């Protein structure tokens, strides 16, 4: 079996709006278990699981939990990053719309383990359906005392509020997200200090992605060690993959880490819609590398992604067939980053604008050798000097195409549009 349904196991078996369905399927049992455990034991179980963050940066989950648990400040926040804005990603929406209690249970477990006092879900403004479902879900959880005061008689108080985004991709970056919850423009902050030390309203804050929180109940149920047996040594558990582009069956698929990208596209996605040849695939989303067809035997693994010097493991696979032009795609990606840059730091604000102009010269087939050199230099500078992940990863698609599709660049230079 290629698929391994852990987080998506209940989906289509339960009515997402019914807490009774969730409870009958074993829901909130792990919260009950958690509040009977020593707080440190919960974090140790997460550590044993080797869970890494599912939002893209793949940071070990237990380090964040421990970071907050150790702080002296008693006001602490738990924030769910539901600002899924990376083009090609929709797996968090899928989880929120189809099994919303799972993520809430994970958040409450995390809050209990870290003695957090209040929770927020920062939900992108475009996810209207998920917003309605989550509002309902939170109400239901409150009615059953899985949220609110003295949760299940434990003496622990915790509630969650939804905050909406307003159409800004960069707000998925943790400090931009914090600024946005505080009611400000979403511009990142200089790190350190990290959010676990000085986060929302200046207090220690645990920020995790929807999928990361959704893993917590499963880790408590299975035990950390059994969870770590799924997947690979460097990447434990399963990954929700958002499959899109020129593919017969786009959608969300849950696979264990270590599965070849080709299998996801061909066995789960049914290959390209009309049997055309695959030309290239973009991994992770707009900020991820574009690889040629012959590299599709690469496996889904956090460390594989790091080989591309990019931190994009959110799990998107965008399939592009032989009709697609490399530069047309790079132009769309360039326009995206030029629009979404927050403007705080110069390399990203100015770099994305100039990068787009250079890419357009290749689209129009009037680029020179000097343009190629400039693209390479500018991309490197942006990657090394931008303040946050947006500017650092904006040139990733360019780096990868310079490596794997260099002949396309050379062809434009040698055969300009007359």
């Amino acid at each position: 079996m290629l698929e391994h349904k852990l987080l998506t196991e209940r989906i289509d078996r339960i009515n997402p709006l019914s807490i009774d369905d969730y409870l009958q399927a074993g829901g909130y049992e792990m919260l009950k278990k958690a509040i009977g455990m020593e707080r440190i034991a919960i974090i140790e179980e997460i550590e044993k699981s080797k869970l890494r963050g599912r939002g893209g940066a793949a940071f070990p989950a237990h380090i964040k939990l421990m970071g907050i648990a150790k702080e002296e400040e008693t006001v602490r926040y738990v924030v769910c990053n539901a600002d899924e804005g990376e083009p090609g990603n929709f797996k968090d929406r899928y989880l929120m719309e189809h099994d919303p209690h799972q993520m809430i249970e994970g958040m409450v477990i995390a809050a209990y383990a870290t003695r957090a006092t209040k929770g927020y879900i920062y939900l992108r403004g475009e996810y209207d359906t998920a917003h309605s479902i989550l509002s309902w879900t939170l109400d239901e959880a409150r009615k059953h005392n899985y949220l609110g005061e003295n949760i299940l008689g434990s003496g622990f108080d915790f509630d969650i509020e939804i905050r909406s985004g307003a159409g800004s991709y960069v707000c998925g970056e943790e400090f931009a997200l914090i600024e946005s919850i505080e009611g400000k423009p979403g511009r990142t902050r200089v790190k350190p200090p990290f959010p676990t030390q000085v986060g929302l309203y200046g207090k220690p804050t645990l920020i995790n992605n929807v999928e990361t929180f959704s893993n917590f109940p499963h880790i408590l149920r299975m035990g950390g060690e059994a969870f770590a047996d799924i997947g690979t040594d460097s990447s434990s558990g399963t990954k929700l993959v958002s499959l899109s582009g020129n593919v017969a069956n786009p959608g969300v698929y849950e696979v264990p880490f270590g599965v070849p990208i080709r299998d996801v596209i061909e066995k789960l996605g049914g290959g390209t819609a009309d049997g055309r040849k695959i030309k290239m695939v973009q991994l992770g989303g707009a900020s991820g590398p574009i690889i040629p067809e012959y590299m599709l035997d690469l496996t889904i693994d956090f460390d594989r992604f790091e080989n591309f010097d990019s931190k994009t493991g959110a799990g998107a696979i965008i399939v592009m067939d032989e009709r697609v032009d490399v530069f047309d795609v790079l132009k769309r990606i360039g326009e995206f980053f030029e629009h979404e840059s927050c403007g705080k730091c110069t390399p990203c604000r100015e770099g994305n604008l100039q990068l787009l102009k250079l890419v357009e010269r290749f689209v129009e087939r009037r680029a020179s050798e000097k343009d190629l050199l400039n693209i390479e230099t500018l991309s490197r500078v942006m990657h090394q000097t931008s303040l946050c992940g947006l500017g650092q990863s904006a040139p990733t698609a360019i780096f990868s195409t310079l490596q794997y599709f260099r002949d396309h660049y050379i062809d434009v230079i040698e055969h300009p549009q007359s």
Partner: protein
Amino acid sequence: MLENILKEYPRQEDYLIEVLLEYQKQKADRHIGEDEIRRIAEHLGVTESKVWSVITFYTFFSTRPRGENIIQICKDVPCYLNDGNTVQRTLEQLLGVQVGDTTKNQKFTLEHTSCLGHCDGAPAIRINDKTYTNLSVDKLKAIISEYRGNT
């Protein structure tokens, strides 16, 4: 209307975005004007410039009047790969305006948006608070005529 919305939220700076979203959603011409900015700033105890900075930062907000229905066309790669260009061309033809403009009868404003997170149903658009997927020319025609009839 603004006063009623302001009453619903705590007088805290961090509710600024929620207030702006709610107000703009209810307002027929989908924008936030200068007088309202002043009133919101005063109510929440923040400077007017702070409200302006938030409005101009986030794509959802507008300081210029727009149509009753905001149509957002996704322009990112997964939609592009699924013939997203046809969507823009079709909508521009149906409405007789270009992206960025509002129809003369103030019913529709056509805008671009970054990825809507419905790539499994590409190409996608969002009208107000509803997302439409797997679009074809016929489907777009049906959607637009529905909005014409109802508004």
